[in-house]
Structures are given as structure tokens and as C-alpha cells.
């Protein structure tokens, strides 16, 4: 009896040494399976990454800048842009190398990079300093024929003096005639008007127009009209 028990004990113990010896040497089939699993995992993670991340381009004004992050104000939304060693910087005014340390607050920049839908952050690949034209839309409040300038009141209640220069292209639009080249003398008070241009560096209520589009058939919006009436009453 004792002999039998001893044999069973030995078999039981030896089995521990025998079985790992078999598992330690994988067969070619196991290797293929392992490789397949690894490949599936890699593809799945890449697909998830591609779905989560997409290319995006934004324009914004720099509100804060650090070595690794730029904070922007883009259409009244705060946007966080991450910067790494692969991010390229450029500026039209820079002759030499341009980097994140050269970016200052209140600079308008264009960002092209990878937007992460989960974190809502952009990993910038290209950061470029740019200048965008100012576009204003409103009603003609007053015309200064001597100085070739017009006063425009916008729907937001903003007053802007627009200087018409020789380079300014002026157009008019009517239902009948369509979109035509026009001139400063054709602009009348209370016309609906759109102006693009650049802001005067010395006066933030003055701009130099590059393009003017006015609509003789469309009056200034009711909001603008009520503002103009209020301005007229207060001046009296």
C-alpha cells in the first residue's frame, strides 16, 4: 500500500515539471496565433485612434502662451493648442528661425493640427502668424464726401469710420443689375453695406477699406435704424 502511495506521489510531483516543459516550446501554430492577435490589437487601436482624432484648422487670437501650450480665443471660444517637437512655426515677418518663444499675446495665428474629440485639444503641426481682414456689416450713417469716408453703424451698435482709398474696390448689388463695379459717389445714407479692410493702428473706430459692397435696394436693418434714431435724438 505504502509503495503505491509513494508512486502516486512521485507521479503527481513529476507532472509539474513535465507540463511546463511542453508549454515552453511553442509550436509554429501558436506563434502564428500570437502574431495574429497582436496584429488585430494594433489595427483595433489604430482605428480607434483615427476615429478619435481628425485634422482641423482654426484661427484665433493668442491669449496665453507657454513652452508646450497656446491658449487661443477663437470666435469667443477658448481653445487649447498643444505644441511638441514636431510643430513647425512660421511668420511672414520673420526672416530667421521662428519658434514658440517668438509668439506674443494678442497675435492672430492659424493652427493646423490633430483635434482630439475626447480631450477637445489640438495637437498643432503647423502654427503660422497671420493677419485677417476685418469684415463689418451695417448701415451707412453718414457720408463725408470731402475726406472720402463713411460712417457705418453695425447691428451690434458699433460705430466705424471707413476711409475709402484709391485701392478700395467698390461694388453695388441690385436685383435687376446684379453685382456691379461702382464708386464712392453712389453710396447714400441708410444703404445696407458690407466693408472689408484693416483697422487703423491708432484709432480702433477707424478702418481703411479694401472692398465695399453696398445694396441700394436694401435699407439698413431695423436694429441699426433704431440706433441711428437714438444717436440723432441724443445729438439734438
Amino acid at each position, binding site marked *: 500500500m505504502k509503495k503505491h502511495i509513494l508512486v502516486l506521489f512521485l507521479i503527481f510531483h513529476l507532472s509539474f515539471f513535465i507540463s511546463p516543459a511542453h508549454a515552453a516550446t511553442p509550436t509554429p501554430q501558436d506563434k502564428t496565433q500570437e502574431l495574429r492577435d497582436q496584429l488585430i490589437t494594433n489595427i483595433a487601436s489604430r482605428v480607434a485612434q483615427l476615429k478619435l482624432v481628425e485634422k482641423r484648422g482654426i484661427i484665433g487670437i493668442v491669449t496665453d502662451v507657454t513652452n508646450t501650450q497656446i491658449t487661443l480665443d477663437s470666435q469667443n471660444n477658448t481653445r487649447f493648442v498643444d505644441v511638441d517637437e514636431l510643430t513647425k512655426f512660421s511668420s511672414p515677418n520673420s526672416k530667421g528661425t521662428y519658434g514658440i518663444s517668438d509668439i506674443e499675446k494678442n497675435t492672430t495665428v492659424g493652427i493646423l493640427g*490633430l483635434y482630439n474629440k475626447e480631450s477637445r485639444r489640438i495637437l498643432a503641426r503647423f502654427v503660422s502668424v497671420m493677419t*485677417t481682414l476685418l469684415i463689418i*456689416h451695417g448701415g451707412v450713417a453718414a457720408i463725408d464726401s470731402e475726406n472720402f469716408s463713411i460712417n457705418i453703424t453695425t447691428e451690434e451698435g458699433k460705430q466705424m469710420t471707413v476711409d475709402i482709398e484709391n485701392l478700395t474696390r467698390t461694388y453695388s448689388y441690385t436685383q435687376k443689375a446684379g*453685382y456691379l463695379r461702382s464708386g464712392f459717389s453712389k453710396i447714400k445714407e441708410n444703404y*445696407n453695406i*458690407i466693408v472689408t479692410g484693416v483697422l487703423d493702428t491708432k484709432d480702433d473706430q477707424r478702418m481703411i477699406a479694401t472692398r465695399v*459692397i453696398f445694396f441700394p*435696394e436694401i435699407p439698413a436693418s431695423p436694429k441699426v435704424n433704431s440706433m441711428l434714431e437714438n444717436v440723432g435724438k441724443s445729438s439734438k
Partner: protein
Amino acid sequence: MKTEKLILSFIATLFGLLVAGIAFYAFQSTKTVAPSSTKTISIVSPSPTPNPTIFLTVDRPKDEEVVNNKILVISGKTSSNAVVIVIADSFEDVITPALNGDFATTVNIDDGQNALEIISIAPNGESIRIKKTVTYSQEEF
């Protein structure tokens, strides 16, 4: 003895409450308030905000979109009697929408970021503006 005391105290409390209630009622009914010390509150119903006569939706392009073709299609829907102006740094276009309000145009965009503004103006002067940023790039990253 104890129960008698309890019942008596209970009746006394009830009687006290009753007397206090009658006294309070009598005081309130005989009280006269001077007209100068009264305040009249009138609830003014808020004036309804005028319904805008114009609407604008822009289907294409998507905001912050990156494209690899310089020819960009801009399309959307607005009031049929409105005038739509598409304006950016390097181009502008004035469109008259179709009878159902659909509008579409193609423009040539610049390299890099393009700040587009789509403005729809109604015949009475009311307007709606939508801003979009579209980036032209062929960079792979």
C-alpha cells in the same frame, strides 16, 4: 391623580391656544393699514421678441474643415427673398437663392487658413452672419 393632572394640563393648553387664536383674529380684522404704506405690484408681461424674418444654415463647408482641393463648394439654405454674400480675404460672391431658399457657389480658397463669412440679408435689412474657417493643406501628418 397623575392622569387627572395630565388631562387638566391638556385642557388648559387647548384653552390657551383657543384664546390666543381668537385674539389674533380679532386683531387682524380690526387692523387698518394706511394707504401710503401699501405697495402695488403690477406684473408686466414681457414683450415678445420679434420673430426674425430671416434664417440661414450652411451645410458645406464644415467649420474648421481641412481640404486638399482649392475649389471649395459653399452651400446652404436661407429665406428665398434674401441675398447671400460669401466673403473672405481674397474673394467675395453675391448669390440669389433658389425659390426654395437653397444656395450654392464655388470659390477658390487660399493656402492655409481661410476665414469665410456668409451673410444673408433680408429685403427689410435684417441679416444673419455665419463664420467658418476652412484650411487648404496637402500636408500629411
